[in-house]
């Protein structure tokens, strides 16, 4: 998972640059997660589905499994990963509620 290497917690004088760093770390995390999102759905489930169907998971063609099962599992995991990662990021930058 993306581990942002940003400077340590904010001081009063550097608030706006810290806000910018927080936002950069957030958008970088979003980009990584959306890349995975697109890969499992549009990649595995649509673009490369025939190729993946040459393999199988259990007794089901793998591409079909991604299109109707696997991609949805990954979606759920992605959202929780984002929520956990943002908890850490919020604390690191001291912006939690």
């Amino acid at each position: 998972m993306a581990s942002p290497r940003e400077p340590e917690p904010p001081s009063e004088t550097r608030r706006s640059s810290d806000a910018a760093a927080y936002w950069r770390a957030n958008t970088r995390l979003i980009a990584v997660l959306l890349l995975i999102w697109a890969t499992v759905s549009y990649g595995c489930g649509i673009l490369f589905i025939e190729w993946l169907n040459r393999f199988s998971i259990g007794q089901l063609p793998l591409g079909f499994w991604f299109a109707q099962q696997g991609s949805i599992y990954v979606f759920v995991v992605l959202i929780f990963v984002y929520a956990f990662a943002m908890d850490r990021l919020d604390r690191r930058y001291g912006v939690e509620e």
Partner: protein
Amino acid sequence: MSALASLPVQASGMDPTMMWTSIFVGVTFTVYLYIGWRNRVTETRGFYVAGRGVPAIANGAATAADWMSAASFISMAGLISFMGSDGSIYLMGWTGGYVLLALLLAPYLRKFGKYTVPEFVGERYYSETARVVAAICAIFVSLTYVVGQMKGVGIVFSRFLEIDMWQGVVVGMVIVAFFAVVGGMKGITWTQVAQYGVLIVAFLIPAIAISAELTGHAIPHIGLTASDIAQKLNAIQTDLGFAKYTEPFASKSRADVLAITFALMVGTAGLPHVIVRFYTVKSVRAARYSAGWALLFIAILYTTAPALAVFARYNLLDSLHEAEITSVETIEIEGEASELYHLARPDGAGGSTPIEWATNWQRTGLISFHDVNGDGRIQLDNVDGHFAEATIDRDIIVLSTPEVARLAPWVIALVAAGGLAAALSTAAGLLLVISSSFAHDLYIHFVDPDATEAQRVRVGRIMIVLAIIVTGWFAIHPPGFVAQVVAFAFGLAAASFFPVILLGIFDSRTNREGAISGMIVGLAFTASYILGNKWDIMFAIERPADWVAPWFARPWFFKISPEGIGTFGCLLNFIVTFTVSRLTPPPPAEIRRFVEDLRVPRAAE
């Protein structure tokens, strides 16, 4: 085919299915009314955003019930069953949008902390025009969508309890009216939590039973993956002359599958009744987790449905193909004489077992047979994409499963209660959006900005009642376009709300001029494409055979079907908004501060 016939009824006496259905519907409706009463509200915050006190996990369940409609519950598994691999457009399309919602929209809209989506658009783009355009879009999208829900309530009532459809619609309207008017968003939220419980149990029990029977695994997902059921289905499909079930792009092109999946995902993330659910949680952090819970709860149904689709289709083909016709009688279905086939399955030892569910369901008109070649057996071979000697409505996949799996009558009744829960929960969420757009964004804002709390809530309640009456009228007298609205609702949400909200948060340079022109271009393109492709169906006008105007011909844009055009409307909106914003003056300084504030969870001192 009409879906209004009643459920199979046994020969005499009080039918146990109807008795159980009456009990379940009575009990669940009483619970919904009680919850609505317990959560009655008196102030705007309670009425529109449930006082922002909804825990993340409860909001997740409420969002799931809000999202999963009568169509998700009753029709989706059947739809997939008839589409095979390409059914993934609905599975991925209607779940993948939650990732976009959780990462790109929900936390920031929660931080914004007002009541409606048009309100956000209006404030971010410092424009009353933008707010009005957004409010009208929200009303249009939600109104078209809710009509289908009310109709779903009527269908379930008429099919399971044998009362007229209009009476079913009226009962549904009264129930929703009560808990929505009394409880507002708070009442709706906690009712939806209960409704999620009912609908998921009702969906899972038959799926588990049929999985255990056909694959030996009680968990449908494992039955689908670990057993050879899909291979056996593929073999039957090939024998009958159909494409293999797991073969992709048998019914739609790859480009179309891509476009539809993306349009449904982005449309999901842009639907106002989904977005507004995230206004009700306690914090930005809760909004993030809440999206995860919502998708988890949705995924339980959405990953079971494709397994059910495979099981049901296998069972249908395996038991009906080459079934023997033991006798044929003439019965009356909706005033028309039709043939009722009694079928039996040869058991290989000279005897045969009657297929009772097939006999029962013919009475509903959802399945019918015709022994075209007169050989005394039913063949299901592929003739021009249809079964040779059977006509099967896709709704039968979910509705007949309990009987196919030989479950008790109370399970069938539970399915009825589940279908009603799905329809009522979605209808309530949509009605609140319609009410808040009228009351909060249009009436209070423009007509009576100095209204007191009590007046605001009263206007909201009146608007809900009006919306329910309008909806009920449309549900009983559906205009021709209702069946086509799914393409519209998602296409318009994808082409209008999603890009404008996303850029509003992630690009502080986006200004009023950009947002308004982007929305107009996206909407005009998407609406005209859908209308151009479907106007004859929508308005029941016959298309002239020699029609040549290219714009209104069948899918002219790379053969993308109308369901998928929202993808291009959305991209067009992004391009126009981005470009126009850079060519016109930047937004005022306070808007830049507004955006900076949105991006940080902690409230500014």
